[in-house]
């Protein structure tokens, strides 16, 4: 039986993890390679590196981080941030990424999904969507949740699937950072419209939130950042807890 995946996400700027992470018994570890190694050993099923660099130098540092991580961490690596063209796909795939996550780039140029799927295969094309409620409807937002595109999230995801996306990440802006649980209602609404795997993001605060996510929705994976970095939820303990509650996980 396919297991539910738990995915830590690292924000990287100029080759270092943003804010640093203070749980290795050391002060503010901000080396993405060290953290990837740590999460791999702790049982992460996949890792997401989100590049928030804009500069050319930052991009080079990021590629270097990716190469060094992929040389010693052998679980799937997903890369997002600033992906606008198939050249961007090329750049990160060659540095060791397995999947590439597109967000704003697909809003501005929906054909990018299809082009990338044709060139590199659907298995490495991840459509990342920021979703927020507007007047009782789910809208797609862009620029980190600041701009309402007016697009219907369900229709947008279904279109992304039809164009060749292999997976969808749904980030709920309504629950993001609130730590009161994933956006079950929204996730169910969108999951009902697509057949490809869905990753839930935004809202995890406690291990119970992951249990509820997997009990109440058909999503395949839960993604979180700070709760893992600040050890509010510990990966190994989370997986044991889920397993005890009959959620299939890899241990």
């Amino acid at each position, binding site marked *: *039986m*396919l*297991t539910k*995946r738990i995915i830590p996400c690292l924000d990287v700027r100029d080759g270092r993890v943003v804010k640093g992470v203070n749980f290795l018994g050391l002060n503010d570890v901000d080396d993405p390679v060290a953290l990837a190694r740590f999460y*791999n050993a702790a049982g992460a*099923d996949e890792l997401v590196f989100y590049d928030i660099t804009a500069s050319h130098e930052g991009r080079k540092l990021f590629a270097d981080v990716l190469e060094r991580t*992929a*040389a*010693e961490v*052998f*679980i*799937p690596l997903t890369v997002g941030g600033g992906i606008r063209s198939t050249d961007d796909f090329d750049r990160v*795939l*060659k*540095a*060791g990424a*397995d999947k590439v996550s597109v967000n704003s780039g697909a809003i501005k140029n929906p054909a990018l999904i299809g082009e990338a799927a044709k060139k*590199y*295969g*659907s*298995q*490495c094309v991840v459509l990342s969507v920021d979703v927020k409620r507007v007047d009782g409807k789910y809208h797609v937002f862009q620029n980190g949740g600041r701009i309402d595109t007016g697009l219907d999230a369900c229709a947008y995801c279904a279109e992304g699937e039809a164009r060749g996306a*292999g*997976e969808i990440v749904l980030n709920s802006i309504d629950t993001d950072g609130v730590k009161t649980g994933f956006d079950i209602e929204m996730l169910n609404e969108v999951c009902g419209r697509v*057949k*490809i*795997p869905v990753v839930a993001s935004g809202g995890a605060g406690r291990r119970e939130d992951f249990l509820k996510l997997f009990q109440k929705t*058909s999503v*395949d*994976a839960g993604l979180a950042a700070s709760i893992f970095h600040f050890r509010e939820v510990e990966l190994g303990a989370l997986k044991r807890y889920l397993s005890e509650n009959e959620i299939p996980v*890899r241990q």
Partner: protein
Amino acid sequence: MTAIVDYGVGNLFSLRRSLDFIGAQNAVTNDPAVILKADRIILPGVGAFGDAAKKLAEGGFFPLLRERAASGVPILGICLGMQLLFDESEEFGRHEGLGLISGRVCPLKASLDALGLSYKLPQMGWNALHFVKADAPLLKYSRAGAFVYYVHSHYATEVKDSLVAFSEYGVRVPGIVQAGSVMGCQFHPEKSGDAGLAILRAFVEYQP
């Protein structure tokens, strides 16, 4: 030396790095002379069977791989590379494979539909490996129930005696197959953490 056949399908970065990591000498190559000299061969691959089979044929790899297999050189097909080892595939029309292992590649969707199951496709994620032949060389360092990482929409059927290990995804998905020194993994050992490295290590140490 292990030759990783580069016929223009997929990203070989992780595969190369995982062999480096376990200390196995390797070369990514499309040069028949290098492949002829290799002690063992890995056939990788992602994407559609038809495209990959066409590229493999254009590169002249069909006769080369068949000859190497006949000479007893260990060959490991990974993901689509495993599917190419079989007789044929029904992915977007009928396509001929290498025919090194008896069986046919079929869409998971058709089998799941026939059973009335609505599993997500592709199968993407970690699934447990159940052993059929626990003493098979590829399983030398593995434990039953180990989790491995799959990404695929098609699977091998009618594999008969070659089945070494499988995973459950509504149907029995052949995870590892072997016929003589020709072996295949439907999952990605280079992405399956320690469980995957254990399988790669067993392959590079295997002596027919």
